[in-house]
């Protein structure tokens, strides 16, 4: 269980997965396993595949519960801007928000075939991760990403944002 926790975190840590999320899943796994087996020796003999299956099912249930428990107040709170502008004040935060919105608008206009790849890349995912998520070849992702970023640059330049150096 400890090793599995470490593995989950090693996969998701780079993209903002919190330890509390993982601990919630593993706590749910422990409870489920204990409810079914009740004998320490039996539990110790359970293989990693069993833990994985239980964790997969537990994580889905946790997300369902979270969504169901979400109140209107919380939903509104989620929409409240909380940009990483630190102590730069509301004006700077608003300016940054508007700037991000223009980037999002430019991304929204990209063709369907490239938009998801560009979104993932901008969100911090690497080419290999994107290829894995789409179950396609990394070379295909590289091509889609390059064309998508070139097009995004053109759009942003037209918007007065740039010049932008396309690295991919």
């Amino acid at each position: 269980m400890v090793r599995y926790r470490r593995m989950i975190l090693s996969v998701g840590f780079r993209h903002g997965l919190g330890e509390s999320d993982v601990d919630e899943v593993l706590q749910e796994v422990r409870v489920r396993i204990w409810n079914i087996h009740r004998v320490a020796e039996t539990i110790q003999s359970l293989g990693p595949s069993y833990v994985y299956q239980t964790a997969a099912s537990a994580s889905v249930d946790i997300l369902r519960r979270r969504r169901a428990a979400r109140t209107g107040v919380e939903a509104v709170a989620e929409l409240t801007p909380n940009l990483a502008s630190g102590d730069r004040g509301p004006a700077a935060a608003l300016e940054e928000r508007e700037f991000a919105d223009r980037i999002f608008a430019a991304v929204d206009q990209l063709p369907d075939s490239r938009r998801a790849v560009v979104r993932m890349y901008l969100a911090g995912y690497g080419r290999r991760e994107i290829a894995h998520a789409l179950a396609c070849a990394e070379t295909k992702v590289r091509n889609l990403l390059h064309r998508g970023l070139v097009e995004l640059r053109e759009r942003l330049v037209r918007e007065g944002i740039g010049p932008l150096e396309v690295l991919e």
Partner: protein
Amino acid sequence: MNMDQLRRHYQAGLAVRSAAKPAVTVEQLEALASHRLSETEAMALLDRVMADDGLRREYELLRSVHEAGRVPSPARRWMPLALAASLLLAVSATYLVQRVWLGGEGEMRGPSAQVALVSPADQSVLPLPVTLAWRPVAGAVRYRVELLDGIGEPTLSEETTDTTFVVPFGGVASGMPYRWWVEVIFPSSSTRSAPRTITFSIP
């Protein structure tokens, strides 16, 4: 602005984008994270997921759980290496056995196959009469000397209790390669040396 700066701005903007009512169900996220969708479906869904930080975080949790489940355990991770090492050991052992038990020049030195041909050397070309010689083998009752022609037909098969045998005139052709070996006959078994080739030159 370079790409890193663009990514930072995008991620800062993304961090506050979370719809009150998610446009993707948990079941769809689960299907995406467990690779149960086609590439087109996955791309369309990821486009929606990545545009909403709340969805992205939910996807990230499911993705991490699935990916961690696919990471081989330490034992499974070392399995290919262990198999390769076993294979290497097996090959080495086979090589050593061949070196120890089957010496050069067709000599067999195992406990049940200790017959070492002495002369003539392999690929010899000699005038008749030729004396074939081998080392004695402990426990041998007798020896059978066999001479085969180019197509594997036995030209000569003689038994002896001696450790030499003289190939007589007649019966063998000049200039043709023959193979010969010695079979050691024990009370309840027999074993044979590796063959050697010899060519007779008849004056």
